[in-house]
Structures are given as structure tokens and as C-alpha cells.
């Protein structure tokens, strides 16, 4: 065969292989979504959302404490991570040539790669042991630590995307750097930052390992940050490794709630980004 015909064949084969790899990657996704939806929907009822867990081995019961718990824990984590993340992102974007900025950027990347179980071990040492108490505060802190690098990076990148003309305009009008950033640049980047925060929230809502020895677990519905707290992820874990069929069904339902949450946040972020692009570029 002529050399160039062979080359064209190889090219076509490779193109198809790349397409195939996309399919191969999407097959597990389809599988997982299929099982989560088909198994989870069976146990998704009013009792699931409103009842507390039944005693071990008895039928019935629900995930009310776990759902509220996840919301509270994510809230505490966000309360800690959002200010720290945004403000440190502002610093890195505004003063990028300082040594602190380089260190902070490196720290954010490092923190992003720290395994979640290690964060849990760390928070146990500083927030559980000294107070001799498992608490939602500790769990929220662990989640917050995991959330910070995402928020920092998002803030930094989005601030850099804001047209310099905006900042220069504010400075030209006599604003201090702080004022310029806070009242002009940051609001311009706000929609993107909020999108990033929403995605980060979805990510930490799905974390299990850092909660195992910080928030512990709680049979009861609690919003007290000083007490242990149940969470969707830990409850799904406990039910999944149990031998009870009823608990397995509830675990799938819990997984469905988690996946729905993640899906919702991702879609929200997608639409927000597209809207943002359209606003900025005018089409």
C-alpha cells in the first residue's frame, strides 16, 4: 500500500480510538447513574426525608438527621472557607509578585492534593482532642479546609480575567487599591466566583473520610455545632457495609440524593458560566 494511504488509515483509526475512549469513560458513568437512580428511587419516600434512623435491624427509618447534618456541616465549612478563600485569592491576584503570593499559591495547590483522610486526622488533633468532644464544628472545619483551595484558585483566576480597564478606571478616579478591588473588580468577578463556590460546596458535600473522626455521627437530628453530627455520606457508608437489605436500599437513596445535589450544582454552574460568557462577550 502506498505510504500516505497507510498514514491516513492510521489517522482514522486513532480518531476512532479517541472517540471510543470517550465512550469507555462514559459507560461506567451511565452504569453508576443507572444503578443509583433505579435502586435509590425505590426507597425515596416521605419517611426517608423526615424520619430518624430506626434501631439496628428494624425496618423503616430515614435520613432526616443525615440530610440536615450535611447541610449544617457544609454551611459551617463554607462560613470558614469562603472568606478565607476569597480574600487570599484577592491577595494572590493583586500582589502576584510577592513571595507570600507564590507561597500561598503553592499552599493552595498542595492543600488541594492532600488526601481527605489526612485532613481528618489533622482536625482530630487540633479540634477534637483538645476539647474532648466530637463536634460538627470540627467536621465543618475539616470540610472547610478542603474547600479553601478551590475557592482561592477560582477567585484568583477570575480576578485575573477582569479587564484591567475596570481597575484602572477606578484607580484613575482616586480609589485606593482596596476600594478599587472591593467595589469594582470583585463585583465584576462575583458571578464566576459564586459559581466556583457552588461547585466547591457540591464537592465537599460528598466527602466522607474527613468526617469519620471529626463530626463522628449522630442518631438524632441536631443542629448544635458543639455536638456530633450525622451526615449523608457517613450514613450511606455505614448502611452500605451493613448486612441489612433495608439499609442497603436506604443507602442507595442517600446516594441518589447526593448525586442529585452534585448534578444540580454542576448544571447551575454550567448555565451560570454560559450566561456570564454571553454577558461579557455580548453574544
Amino acid at each position, binding site marked *: 500500500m502506498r505510504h500516505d494511504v497507510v498514514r491516513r488509515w492510521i489517522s482514522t483509526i486513532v480518531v476512532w480510538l479517541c472517540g471510543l475512549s470517550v465512550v469507555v469513560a462514559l459507560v461506567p458513568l451511565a452504569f453508576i447513574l443507572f444503578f443509583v437512580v433505579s435502586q435509590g428511587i425505590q426507597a425515596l419516600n416521605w419517611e426517608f426525608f423526615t424520619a430518624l434512623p430506626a*434501631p*439496628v*435491624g*428494624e425496618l423503616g427509618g430515614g435520613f432526616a438527621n443525615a440530610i*440536615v447534618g450535611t447541610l449544617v456541616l457544609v454551611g459551617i465549612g463554607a462560613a470558614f472557607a469562603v472568606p478565607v478563600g476569597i480574600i487570599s485569592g484577592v491577595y494572590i491576584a493583586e500582589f502576584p509578585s510577592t513571595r507570600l503570593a507564590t507561597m500561598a499559591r503553592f499552599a493552595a495547590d498542595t492543600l488541594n492534593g492532600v488526601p481527605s483522610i489526612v485532613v481528618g486526622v489533622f482536625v482530630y488533633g487540633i479540634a*477534637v*482532642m483538645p476539647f*474532648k*468532644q*466530637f463536634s460538627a464544628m470540627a467536621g465543618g472545619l475539616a470540610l472547610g479546609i478542603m474547600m479553601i483551595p478551590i475557592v482561592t484558585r477560582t477567585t484568583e483566576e477570575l480576578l485575573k480575567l477582569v479587564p484591567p480597564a475596570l481597575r484602572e478606571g477606578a484607580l484613575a478616579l482616586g480609589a485606593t487599591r482596596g476600594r478599587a478591588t472591593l467595589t469594582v473588580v470583585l463585583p465584576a468577578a462575583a458571578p464566576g466566583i459564586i459559581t466556583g463556590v457552588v461547585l466547591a460546596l457540591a464537592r465537599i458535600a460528598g466527602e466522607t473520610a474527613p468526617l469519620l473522626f471529626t463530626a*463522628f*455521627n*449522630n*442518631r*438524632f*437530628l*441536631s*443542629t*448544635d455545632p458543639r*455536638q*456530633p453530627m450525622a451526615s449523608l455520606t457517613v450514613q450511606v457508608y*455505614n448502611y452500605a*457495609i*451493613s*448486612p*441489612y437489605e433495608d439499609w442497603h436500599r436506604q443507602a442507595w437513596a442517600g446516594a441518589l440524593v447526593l448525586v442529585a445535589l452534585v448534578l444540580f450544582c454542576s448544571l447551575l454552574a454550567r448555565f451560570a458560566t454560559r450566561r456570564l460568557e454571553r454577558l461579557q462577550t455580548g453574544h
Partner: protein
Amino acid sequence: MKVSFTPGRRRALVALAAAIVAAPAFLVAQGQINGAGATFPAPIYSKWFSEYGKLKSVAINYQPLGSGAGIRQLTNQTVFFGATDGPMTTDQMQAAPGKILHLPTVLGAVVPIYEVPGVTAELKFTGPLIADIFMGKVTKWNDPAIVKLNAGVKLPDLDITVVHRSDGSGTSYIFADYLAKVSPEWAKTVGVSTAVKWPVGLGGKGSEGVTGLVKQTPGSIGYVELVYALQTKIAFGSVQNAAGEFVKASIPSVTAAAAAAVKAMPKDFRVSITNAPGPGVYPMASFTWLLLYENPKDKAQSKVMVDFMKWALTDGQKFATGLGYAPLPAEIVKLELAALATVKVS
């Protein structure tokens, strides 16, 4: 559409947020008490705490993390009470910041569960055989040692998959304690503790994890508290006791195991009743203990727990048999109520 955050709107939002955060605080059970420990008694404890909670409007949050975790967290004082089926060692008790009382709550049994395809009959085991299986010396279900004990049962040529606990467990303690008594090799190479170095097998988290693994893995064998086998309808075998009989775990056989201990109960209630002598005795029976500090800092919580224990030792015992546990003998209850009086509640 741009929403303008006028001062009025801002204040309203803050008030709303505050209300949302504050309101559920009223739903919080007053003075929640946290405990952790064994999975062995978890079914009856969760039943008890649920029933008692309804009676007295208290919230006792018990997490079955395993006896090892219960002991550890109690020592660290991150929980108020612990629960274990392997009594604390002297070293562990010395490491604790205060004196800890072991209070027996019920009697239970550790049973050998298995999942062998095609076998519906109840299998018979001896102690040494179980030790050999868990040491990896007997590896197939149709091994002559098993076949000899179970004539008439068609055992397949299938590998035995051993399942044990991956976490520190009192159930493991009871199991290892029994095996050490009947198998000198086990005593020498593996030993007795809540977390031994298992020669072979898969690790499941909690009794639930072990039961789950065994149920899903054909050819597997594990050990769990009786109640888990009953609740999940998984097959469990009979074990040969010190008198040579093959006994299946049941309320009478477990109660018989405690009979000898009743006469010679040590003052701190830490006693092993595995491989107890006598007819009709189930060899892998054990007490399970609730651990309380004698002089804890939070006296209010102490009072709640002492009152709970008094209820559990008397009215609570009626729930035991329904869940596959044997109630405590009356003599032991009397001794315990006396011991409870030493716990400081004010």
C-alpha cells in the same frame, strides 16, 4: 435582572438567616450524651436507647465503632461512655484519666457464620478446626477435617474465604479468647486481643461489615454476634463445647455458660466465660460491658446514665431474648446495682 441590596432588604435577609439558623436549635434534644463502642450489643443498645429515650426524653447517641474505638474514645474523654466485649487490659485501665467501671449489660454469643453454595444443613465445627481455618491451615470446604464432622453433608470443592474484623473488636476478642483456649498454636502465634494480626482473610468493618461480606462472598466463613446471624437469616453452625457436645448458640446455652461465672464473679465484673465447662453450654458466649467513669466531670450526664443502667438491668432485660441475647442472671444484677451506687452523680 440586577437585585439591589438596599439597607432594608439587607437587614431582612440577615434576620431571615438568623431565624433559620436559630430555629432548629429548639429541636435539639437537651443534653445529648455520646457513647461509642462494641458492635456486638449494638442492636440491643440501639433498641434500649430508643425505648428509654421515649420514656425519659433523653437523647443518648451510641455509635457502634468497635470495642477498640470505644475504649480509646472513652480514655480520650471524647465520649461519655464506652462499650466493649473485650474487657480493658490493666495497661488500658491505667492509661485512663480516672477509674472506669465495667458493667455487664447482657449475655451474647459469637457464632461462626458461613455462606457455602449448596449447603443448607447446619455445619458442625470444633474449636481446633475453627482455629485451623482462621490460621489458613484448612483451606477448602471439602477438607477431610470438615467432612469428618459433617457426614452426610455434600461439601463442595471450594476455597474457604476467611472474613474477620478489620477494626478493633470485642467480638474478635471473644473469638480469639475461645480459640486460644482450645488451640495452643493459636495462643502462641496469634494471641488474644481486640485487634490481632489475622493470618489470612478479608477484613470487614464492624459486625455489620463482616456479615455483609460473608453474605456476598460464596465460600466464606466469619464470626459475628448471634443477633446479626438471626436478623439477616444467614447460616451459622454449632460448636463443640468443653463437654464434647455440639451446641448451637441459643438463649439457654448462653445462659448455661454464665452459670459458673455467677458463683465466682470478680468484683470488677471482668470475667471470661468462653469454653465454660458443663452440659448444654455454648462455648463462645460472653458478657458485654458498658464502661462508665466512676467520677466523671459532668455529673448531670452521669445521673442520666446511672438511671439508664438501672432501667436496663431491670426493665430493659425483657428486650434481650427477642434480639437473641440472654438476660443477666439475677445475682449479677444485684451485684451491679450495688456497684452503680459508687458512681458519682452529684
